[in-house]
């Protein structure tokens, strides 16, 4: 089980790979769309990679609710 810091770091690596955003930019309060400029196609890729990395399921209706990086970290922490 990864703790929140480990989840944040792991998520940042995925975001960096998919969208080319520096890991340091991927902070809990950042919005995927408004701050990090990540489109819906990249969000699908990020979700699939996060599922594999953290052993969680992120259904589409839940994915749509994950507005910020912190939302995603919390969701993964709760469901892993």
């Amino acid at each position, binding site marked *: 089980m990864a703790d929140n810091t480990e989840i944040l770091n792991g998520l940042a690596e995925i975001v960096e790979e*998919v*969208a*080319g955003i520096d890991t340091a930019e991927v902070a809990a309060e950042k919005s995927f769309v408004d701050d990090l400029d990540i489109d*819906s*196609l*990249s969000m*699908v*890729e990020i979700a*699939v990679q996060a*599922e594999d990395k953290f052993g969680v399921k992120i259904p589409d209706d839940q994915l749509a609710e994950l507005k910020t990086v912190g939302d995603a970290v919390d969701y993964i922490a709760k469901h892993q």
Partner: protein
Amino acid sequence: MSAGGTGSQVEVVVTGLGATTPLGGDVASTWEGMLSGRSGVRRIDEDYDWINRRELPVKIGAPLVAEPAEVLSRVQARRLDRVEQLAVVAAKEAWADAGTPEVEPERLAVVVGTGIGGVTTLLAQDDLLETDGLRKVSPLTVPMLMPNGPAAWVSLEFGARGGVHAPVSACATGAEALAWALMLLRLGEVDVIIAGGAEACITQLTVAGFVQSRTLSQRNDEPERASRPFDTGRDGFVLGEGAGIMVLERAEFAAARGARVHGKLAGAGLTADAYHITGPEPEGVGQSRAIAKAVRDAGLEPSDVGHVNCHATSTVAGDVGETRAVRKALGDHPVLTAPKGAFGHLVGAAGAVESIITVLSIKEGVIPPTLNLEELDPGVELDVVAGEPRKVDLQAAVCDSFGFGGHNAAIAFTKA
């Protein structure tokens, strides 16, 4: 159809050139390769493991020498199929060469085609679906494989909002894109167009398909000598990959911004054979009509055209027929060359890259040789440049491109 009537013509000039080919990663290195007689054809069975795995009899090809993914940012490369990458790389060079024109986004359009589209993605994602299931299929699959993808990515790169068009006519695509661009500029709705073609289809399925249609050279032991248009020893074409892009402008617009002009895109002729899905009509009637239309559309007489940059692919059937079509349309005087001897067949990019060679031939007053033309097919009754480049003062030249499906495209260029 021709690309517009003669008379009330809007003049169209070529202000930017960009290319990535088996001879080089830009126009300068490609042109240098053409003049120095280099070949872009080589063995590819070590790079592509499927050649031996599938026991394909063709072990040669003309791949790029500059990897596009090394020129683009990592994320952009990841989101674009190889054919889209090539289009963007060549368009960037052409745009810079044109001096990055300042133009209203609504007055800037894109016409970039491909013959095959994002087949690398199609095959890879189909494999993923088979082996790993739905979850592993990329959400970018469709935008990466769609044949308008190269044009769309070029429009995004330069913010072109005046229209994005993607002609698809197999090996005539690149030339047809230039013809469409000419028509659109004449309509007056836009001032600048980024136009050309891109292709990246050295994949197991496309090579296997070309092998089965018996169109590829199997001169595996002498790759550099395999592509030999008009030569008696020719045995098929060599599949290459690349992109060619031109920046085209209304002459008035280019003059107002003080642009440097490489030459004029003076006319275009598009016809169809409606004869056979792959084979050219043997008398070259449709090809001849396309050439004649391009010349007429440009307001030229056949005697004005000193040079034809031929489609000649190095297949047994096609090359000689084309020379008959040239002769019928223009007479005995044009001097010919066939760039595919040097860089193979770039399919949907061929007509665009070869049009760039044509523009440079007029501009520099030199026609590059047809590489590997050692013994001229006795059916060819015209003068073909071989061995060394030939210095010729040219006022006008035509570039031919023909494609599976019976597409014939001819583009007439004139001196700036």
